[in-house]
């Protein structure tokens, strides 16, 4: 059945990897905030 033949579009890995560069600012910002939040909890 087709439903079992769904595969990840590995052929488009280049697109996905390039997309990661766009995602980087969000990850850096969110990661920085989360890191600061954890530090604040550990050292109130």
């Amino acid at each position, binding site marked *: 059945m087709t439903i079992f033949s769904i595969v990840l579009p590995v052929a488009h890995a280049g*697109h996905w990897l390039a997309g990661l560069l*766009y*995602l980087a*600012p*969000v990850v850096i910002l969110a990661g920085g905030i*989360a890191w600061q939040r954890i530090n604040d909890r550990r050292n109130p």
Partner: protein
Amino acid sequence: LSGKAARSGVVAAIAGAALLAAPAAADAHGLVGRADLPIPDWLFAWAAAAVLAISFFAFAVFWQEPVLETNVPKERFTIPVFVDVMCGAIGVAIMFGLIYAGFHGSQLDSENVVPTFIYVFFWSLLPLLCAIFGDLFRAFNPWRAIGRAGGWVVNRISGENLPAPFEYPEKLGRFPAVFFLFGFGFLELVTLSGRHPDVLATAIIIYAFVQLIGMTLFGVDRWLERGDAFNVYFNVFSRISPLTVKNRKLATRLPLSGLTDFTWLPSTVLFFCASIGITAFDGSSEGSVWQSFSKTLQSVFTDIGFGPQTSLQIAFTIGLILSIAIVYGFYRLGIEGMVSSHIDMSAKELSRTFAPSLVPIMLGYILAHYFSFIMFQGQAMFAFVSNPLGHGTNYFGTANVKINYRFLSTNTIWYFQVLVLVIGHVAGLAVAHDKALAVWGKARAAVQSQIWMLVVMVGFTSLGLWLLSQANQ
């Protein structure tokens, strides 16, 4: 991790995965072939993120008191009644003209004025005009004009101001408007006949009919604010404008300040997210990954027993819903982040309080995604005013005006797209910052609350630029 933090983490993971999984896109209305940018296009996203972060800290340092919230519009002059009546009559005439053109004109969308008028002028350009000049659509809204005229006649005959026959179920809020906005997106992006002039003319008739029923049952203004998707859509953009009309008096105000007194009703946030999601899906639905994925989805539904066209439309419906859900999920990420900042407001209250900050983003997305469409396909209106039906008329001598595709370079289009996306998101940050100052009073608390909103804005900017960059590869 606490429950709230864990919940935020889950939302962040889902939103991040959604951003990655969002299909590589090709702007459905854009032109392809951009080349020779001096830096890689992803660096524009980094630069945009830097601009947003710098703006955020600039607001924190230099913007310590609410400005937009406290702004009082200054009344300039009274608009005569006949102007209101005349604008309404023009709106009705345009509506009937479009219906006539849809049924009696050429059925090729390139020869008939209806598709270009609706998708270029109405859907893509009018939001900008409303953001500059105020609520133009309200003035020309044909079903409002008919509804008001009908109410005036009934009141004259009865000799008294009759109330609406039914009380609007307030729990519904703006859900009818969300439904019709989604319906428009469905017509444009999912159906295979969304550009056929006769289909669009039929849609206009059905929509006008439903609006007239709604106004008759619940009252003109009450229904328009809740059930007329386009009244809500253009009204929120008009709140960016420095011009407003209240009680027939034209007034000036600070740009964006109109967003501060936007009446919150249930489903308002969903309406904003639907608007952004429809635009985003419009950009992404012709991308290679989405096309590949939609074919897989299509084959799933074909195997179940649906026909190929129905299966494709089901797949695109899922994509449209998914796109709106991603936008909604990302906004909720920001809200959950704010909740985790020990703020004494619930997620629901925060969501509705900061929802107007999504409006400048809506406009930024629309202008960025449809800019080339407006600038190029918009030129076709010169020919259509002389030959609206495609029957060879030449009323104003402009029927043979061709679209000049060299008018703008693809790099210029890209720079403009980046610019409007960044401006839209900085404006969204400004609205949220001003609201936070009004809510919490102290600048420090306001800034602490808004740090997650910055993440949301950076995320939307990156997503928007990524969608656009894929279109131009």
